């Protein structure tokens, strides 16, 4: 092999740079977010597991049902009837957006545009 010294040194440098993010971040996993729930003991629209995994789909369906079909009452698995509204139903309990919604969204680096329009009274102090 010609120039084996240079080639091997180059390879070593390349591998070191390419794997830099992995060994630099080793053992420094960001802690799991702990969203704060204000209303302990109260039940959410659906079960905790369902809300955790599927709240985004539920919100999309709620949006279409309320806005496009004009039907604003939702009967959940437990048979309870709930008024469909992000701002007036969800955020009445989860009124601490910065300590609840934002916690996981920031962890997962997700920027949902819900809050371009919907808001909680506390949050609105920033711009009102």
């Amino acid at each position, binding site marked *: 092999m010609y120039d084996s010294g240079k080639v091997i040194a180059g390879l070593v440098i390349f591998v070191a740079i390419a794997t830099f993010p992995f060994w630099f971040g080793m053992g420094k996993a960001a802690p799991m977010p702990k969203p704060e729930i204000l209303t302990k003991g109260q039940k959410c629209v*659906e079960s905790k597991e*369902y809300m955790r*995994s*599927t709240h985004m*789909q*539920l919100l999309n*369906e709620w*949006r279409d*049902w309320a*806005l*496009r*079909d*004009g*039907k*604003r*009452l*939702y*009967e*959940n*698995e437990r048979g309870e009837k709930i*008024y*469909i509204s992000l*701002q*007036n139903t969800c955020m009445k309990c989860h009124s601490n957006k910065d300590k609840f919604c934002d916690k996981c969204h920031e962890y997962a680096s997700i920027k949902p*545009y819900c809050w*371009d*329009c*919907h*808001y909680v*009274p506390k949050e*609105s102090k920033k*711009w*009102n």
Partner: protein
Amino acid sequence: MELKRRQFLKIAGAAGLLGAGAAQGLFEGTAQASRVMHPEGALIGKRWAMVIDMRKCGEKEGCNDCINACNFVHNIPHFDTPKEEIKWIWKDEYEHVFTDISTLDPYVPERIKELPFLVMCNHCDNPPCVRVCPTKATFRRPDGIVAMDYHRCIGCRFCMAACPYGSRNFNWRDPRLGLKGRKLNYEFPTRMRGVVEKCNFCVERLAKGKMPACVEACKEGALTFGDLADPNSEVRKLLSENYALRRKPQLGTKPSVFYIIA
């Protein structure tokens, strides 16, 4: 190892079945379609309409009750420049509201020419804004209300060009900038920059069994809201007893807002 045709088919079949099962498991969580319905006491109509009685509207000079009520209920921002202003219901003069008859017939009493005509989205039967919207962000509900889904609006402003009544406004700036220091209605969202907005005939209030905010706010009883399809409704009674105009009828849009002039 050489695979026989028969073996290959068996393995492929088993793998396919497994894959289908896994895919089903993936999508199971999404469609937990429980029931959705109208809330109890919601006002449900077939063809919502508004009658504006100009004999009563002009009575109190400088009255802005309906406009203020709407601005508050829907968190409508205030911007000074005409290009940026947002309005769902506002006043205009006879000449601008009835552009056609006012040019054809100049012999109209001065008194009428000076009346503060209230204008808003006409919630047309044949809405040009709906026809041109490329994303179906604006659509006509079965009850006649021309509604907007701000989640879908891409801000192309075709609807603004299509609307012959100028009932639509574009949010050139973050509307929240125009709400600084204003009392907010915490039950209603704001809009975001880059969407078009307009009057929604208070769908969110109808769902709760309430009349539109402007109708409720008018102390003179000049605004009447009701179902055109119901022959016993208040609006039909008014229209059968009085001669009412609609804006630009020759365009064929068939507005749902009627004006009793005199």
